[in-house]
């Protein structure tokens, strides 16, 4: 369609404004993580002119005691309390272990289940698929309550394995539907040809189908990882010793004050893996988020 050049420029300006407006909170957040105490708590917004500091990262990631940070006219050291409770490397490890574990289990189970759903027809299949979807409607708190008791009885409360299983439970329905939609794209003829050539069902699955579905597999894995990485409610209710990053960050909000420097530092660090993964699988992202429902 032909458009007036001025209209095109107007469109550019609007588009940039809107997008920058949406990126601004992240920008502001990351900026705050490099600010000294006084610049964060300034009554007028501070964009420049402050001395960038890594203190917030040194406390949350480096294990430096906050009391040793007597800089900034002593402001950072004025609140009583040790620095150790802000040291978050163990939380990061917890999050990585849980996210990787639940991603791995989700992927293996979901792929097998999706392959079955995609290649075999059985009675009650449609209701079954719909039932998997309806799992997503369960409010997380409704899941948290029974799991809480189940884990207590099984001794899984406050263990990595317990949290991995809980996250797997949340990821599985999405992962199954997603893998099914990717597997449906691969013609079943290929399977049959392979089997005519003498391959077993397992060989067909492993040597013929899996290489073709690699992209979809990666996208599903990334989404599982991100869902687990960002999950809050179950991690909060099911653990007290193991603290995943979102839960750990929320503990920095205390009744005596909110440690914005540490919150923004750890929050910024927590964004990095998700950003990297999203960039890697961006073209599959839409299908992932909509459970493949936009397929033609």
């Amino acid at each position, binding site marked *: *369609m032909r458009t007036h050049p001025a209209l*095109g420029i107007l*469109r*550019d300006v609007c*588009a940039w404004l809107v*997008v920058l407006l*949406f*990126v601004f*909170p*992240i920008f*502001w*957040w990351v900026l705050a993580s490099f600010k000294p105490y006084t610049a964060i*708590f300034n009554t007028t*917004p501070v964009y420049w002119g402050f001395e960038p500091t890594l203190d917030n990262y040194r406390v949350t990631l480096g294990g430096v005691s906050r009391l040793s940070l007597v800089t900034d006219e002593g402001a950072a050291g004025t609140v009583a309390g040790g620095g150790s409770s802000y040291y978050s490397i163990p939380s990061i490890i917890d999050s990585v272990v849980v996210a990787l574990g639940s991603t791995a289990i989700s992927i293996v*189970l979901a792929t*097998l289940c999706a392959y*079955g759903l995609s290649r075999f027809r059985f009675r009650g299949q449609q209701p*079954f698929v719909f*039932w*998997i979807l*309806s799992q997503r*409607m369960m*409010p*997380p*708190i*409704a899941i*948290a*309550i*029974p799991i809480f*008791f*189940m884990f207590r009885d099984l001794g899984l409360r406050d263990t990595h394995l317990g949290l991995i299983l809980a996250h797997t*439970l949340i990821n*599985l329905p999405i992962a199954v539907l997603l893998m099914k939609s990717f597997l449906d794209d691969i013609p079943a003829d290929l399977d049959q040809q392979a089997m005519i050539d003498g391959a077993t069902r397992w060989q067909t699955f492993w040597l013929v189908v899996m290489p073709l579905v690699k992209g979809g597999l990666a996208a599903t894995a990334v989404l599982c990882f*991100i869902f687990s990485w*960002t999950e*809050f*409610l179950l991690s909060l*209710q099911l653990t007290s010793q193991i603290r995943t990053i*979102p*839960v750990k*960050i*929320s503990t920095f*909000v205390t009744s005596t004050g*909110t440690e*914005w420097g540490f*919150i923004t530092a750890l*929050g910024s660090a*927590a*964004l990095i893996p*998700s*950003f990297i993964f*999203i*960039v890697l699988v*961006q073209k599959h992202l*839409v299908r992932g*988020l*909509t*459970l493949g*429902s*936009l397929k033609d």
Partner: protein
Amino acid sequence: MPVVVLLVVFGVYPLLYSVWLSLQERSRVTRQFEFVGLKQWEIALTDPRTWDSFQVTLTYTLVCLFFQVVLGMAIAMLLDTERRGYGLLRSLMTLPLVVPPAVTGLMFLLMEDAQFGVLSYYLKQLGIIDPLNPILAGNDTALIGVMLADIWQWTPFMVLIFLAGLRALPKEPYEAAAIDGASAFQAFRMITLPLLTRVIAVAVLIRSIDLFRVYDYVYVMTSGGPGTQTETLSFYAGRLFTLANFPYAAALALIVLISLNVIASIFIKLFKVRF
């Protein structure tokens, strides 16, 4: 398929357990659960706090949904072009989606702080908010403050879906419409909207399910306050869980589940959504 067994164990068991739990009561004397039938349900359905939180949840869902759909559609149409730099813009637009919701809540908590929040500062400058009335502590503004976080995080999701939908549209009807002298708005209303109905319906369905269960933003931003102004059903259930009133929390959570199932089923029938 062993996977089916596993899904049943993890999918059906918690549900049945919730139902069973919701029929119990924790005895004050023995600290044991006792069967009391539908008592918890009766309490839940006559508790004014349930209905308050139901109303909050509904308001939250509808308002957020409205802004996410309208903004999402407008921004998707704005970005749906092959002009220079728009690929980058589309990528940047997806950034909010990977921020953990708990962190998003904190982001907006920081920005809406009464003393040093950047958003509060500009809104004060513009005279939109009363300097003496902090956003998240005001009876009228607290819920809006929480909804802002949700709208920020999930509008990009709508943009992504609508962009994918717009990409799949045929070009011919627009050419025909242009020849017939239709305005851009007419073309949008008569061609784009009808062709995108299914896409919009799916997006609205998925988003409603999540909105109706909102928990994270409320937890980190207001904890339901001031008073119970921002207490959603999920959050109320979570609070009861924390107070160890498990049977009542289970009954409430099941009410959320049932409401959602009813709404979603009607919706799926109405718009013939197929997955």
